[in-house]
């Protein structure tokens, strides 16, 4: 294997694998940050560091890197790159060199984020970077701004690339109603990225201009306004939740359809009602992040209604998933376990989000561990489970080899147990009043036991994730040959050889009139 070939590759599959390696590395680093935080919180007072800033840097790194360096790149970088051209029967993406540029920028962004550990004044502004703190801290806010800008730019050019690819490069016979759900979901995610990333870029640029260039966008003593930043930030960052949610639920659809060998239930409902509805509502709900920020009351009430209405498209997508399981032929393989895990984790996360849509209930639990537990269930852990399940699902396609089923399942169950210990307890102490982003909780001594259980849970889930990652590495080196289509799926990516050659197909694919990516046949 030639390193230069990989670095200068324009092959969408290699670009995808580069995204995967980078994002899993980011996941490992951000996961270690989480473990350090859990270790620190295991006792009241200083435990492993006596310096609160050190803790805040871990917290910043954990949030920023998990979202910007792991979930978004893994979903819209790895899965989109690897699967979309294969699923639509294309030789490659529309602009392969632009694609290579996007993965380079991604690595620059990740390296910039990791330099946090080597500079004397690491950023400690949380992944939200709210002013006035971010403009007066001695931490390096510019580092935060540039990390966001570079990763955002990588994502935008990826978005342009994939919208063009799906619009123009589908194989003959693949109509819009024969696209995989994952393709629809990812397209929708890229539409959201193209609309909203510039807003985030603006917000973080203005922060650095305020801090380093003497402008006063957010300084009220000189005519600025503090709340403007929060609006700009969440005007992007709520849709960003759907940029994560849509591709991960798309991955779950692919896994469930393939391992239940069943057609997707009510395809048009899922695509137009579910995916379409989320795109329509995504930009009208950001104020639910600002329910206690001092926004106008009528905005909080108005966006309570839009936020609750998100339950409609999301509910339709859940009905689609359950309907696909119904009357299926479910094999409990490792990817299927992860996908079913997502269904149950997302159920908990989604339902616990209902009170958080209501400002008068949020006023009690906002900025507590309840919120942290909720969004870890609904987005962080559900998304990560989908990513892990997806990597297992397409592992035979990527490597031509099979992972170890026993270790895969063991890893899943360990992680599933750990996750529920950590985040269930987290929601419980949150309702009782434990605020988030605390280095120490000296005035809440009653929560020490719960914190210790969470630390134990975090250690357990770390073991589970480690088993999964080792399973991939060992499987890629010396797994058994898997064959071209181990799951018996008619979806196009399984019709070529494993691993697919440069150009994907020996001869250009075409599909028959009655072909459908979910048309599973007996035999």
């Amino acid at each position, binding site marked *: 294997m030639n390193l230069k070939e990989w670095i200068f590759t324009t092959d969408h599959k290699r670009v995808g694998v580069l995204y995967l390696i980078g994002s899993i590395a980011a996941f490992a680093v951000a996961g270690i940050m989480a473990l350090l935080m859990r270790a620190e919180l295991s006792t009241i007072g200083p435990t492993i560091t006596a310096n609160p800033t050190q803790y805040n840097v871990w917290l910043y790194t954990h949030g920023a890197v998990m979202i910007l360096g792991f979930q978004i790149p893994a979903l819209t970088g790895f899965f989109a790159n690897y699967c979309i051209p294969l699923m639509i029967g294309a030789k490659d993406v529309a602009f392969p060199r632009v694609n290579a540029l996007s993965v380079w920028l991604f690595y620059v962004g990740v390296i910039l984020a990791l330099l946090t550990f080597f500079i004397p004044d690491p950023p400690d502004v949380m992944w939200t970077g709210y002013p006035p703190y971010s403009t007066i801290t001695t931490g390096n806010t510019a580092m935060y701004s540039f990390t966001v800008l570079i990763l955002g730019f990588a994502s935008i050019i990826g978005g342009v690339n994939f919208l063009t690819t799906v619009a123009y490069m589908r194989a003959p016979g693949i109509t819009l109603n024969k696209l995989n759900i994952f393709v629809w979901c990812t397209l929708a995610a890229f539409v959201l990225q193209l609309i909203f990333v510039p807003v985030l870029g603006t917000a973080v640029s203005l922060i650095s201009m305020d801090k380093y260039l003497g402008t006063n966008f957010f300084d*009220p003593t000189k005519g600025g306004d503090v709340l403007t930043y929060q609006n700009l930030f969440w005007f992007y960052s709520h849709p960003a939740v759907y940029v994560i949610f849509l591709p991960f639920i798309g991955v779950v659809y692919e896994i469930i359809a393939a391992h239940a060998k069943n057609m997707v239930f009510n395809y048009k409902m899922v695509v137009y009602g579910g995916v379409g509805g989320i795109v329509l509502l995504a930009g009208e709900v950001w104020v639910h992040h600002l329910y206690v920020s001092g926004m106008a009351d009528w905005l909080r009430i108005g966006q309570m209604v839009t936020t609750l209405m998100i339950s409609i498209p999301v509910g339709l997508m859940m009905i689609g998933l359950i309907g696909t399981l119904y009357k299926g032929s479910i094999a409990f393989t490792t990817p299927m376990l992860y996908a079913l895990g997502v269904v149950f984790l997302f159920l908990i996360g989604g339902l616990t989000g209902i009170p958080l849509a209501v400002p008068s209930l949020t006023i*009690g639990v906002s900025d507590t561990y309840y919120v942290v537990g909720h969004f870890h269930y609904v987005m962080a852990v559900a998304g990560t489970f989908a990513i892990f399940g997806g990597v297992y699902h397409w592992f035979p396609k990527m490597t031509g080899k099979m992972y170890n089923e026993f270790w895969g399942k063991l890893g899943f169950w360990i992680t599933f147990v750990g996750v529920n210990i950590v985040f269930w307890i987290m929601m419980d102490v949150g309702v009782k009043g434990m605020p988030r982003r605390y280095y120490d909780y000296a005035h809440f001594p009653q929560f020490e036991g719960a914190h210790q259980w969470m630390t134990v849970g975090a250690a357990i889930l770390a073991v589970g994730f480690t088993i999964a990652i080792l399973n991939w590495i060992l499987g890629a080196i010396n797994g058994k040959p898997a064959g071209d289509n181990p799951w018996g799926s008619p979806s196009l990516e399984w019709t070529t050889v494993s691993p697919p050659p440069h150009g994907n197909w020996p001869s250009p694919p075409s599909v028959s009139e009655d072909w459908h990516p979910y048309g599973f046949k007996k035999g």
Partner: protein
Amino acid sequence: MKGKRMHDTIKRAAAGLAALFLTVPAWAAGGAKAAAATPDPARDWDLLWNEVIFDITIIGILFAIVTAWFIWQARRRPGNEVGASVPLSPASAVGWVVIPIFVFLSIDLYTAANGWVLWNTFRDVPANRMEIKLEAGMYSWDYTYPNGVRTQNELVVPAGTPIVLRMTSRDTLHSHYIPDFRVKEDSMPGRITYLWFNPTKPGEHIVTCAEYCGVMHGYMAGRIIVKAPEEYAAWMKGEETRLAALTAPEPAPAAKPAKPAAKKT
């Protein structure tokens, strides 16, 4: 039993609808509104919270059982090697969109109506309130009473009087969170925000910062001490005497308030 529950539901829905249409001017004004009896937002919060948690628990358990049953029924076994779903007829495909939309939407609007009623409780400050100014800063809560008495990190209030805090910040964002009263609101430079709570009986309550404000965010805590009205009056008299003693030599106390009367312990 069922009739009772039904009746409650109808009453609640009616209240929600009424709130939807009738209270627009009230929250638009965002100001004080006289009420017959002083409402207790913390108690109302507990009621609605428990109801919502009860409902989502029921929904969640039902959903989980049905899903688990489907999964078990559809496990791969001899005779079930491939999924048996058939394409839906156009009518049932549309039905599977329209009916869930109505179900979800009615749950949403019901929740929204109840949430709105509670919101009005949290935002409409009773007329018999006491107004206290709060300036938050890294890392303390500085309270100023209507008569100029100041305290830091410790707010003494009389039981039975609704307290409204008019809040601002001198540096970064802070959020005055009183877990026992289920209420918080951010404070920031350049704007004045408010929250109110109803201390019904004597006791002590933790105040803690709920918006990341800097290195020592986790240590930014204080206390609200609720005293019986007569004890409060005695305490306030003492504070006033102290303040007078401190400000006596000053020619114009209003223009130049003294050093904080008190870091009380």
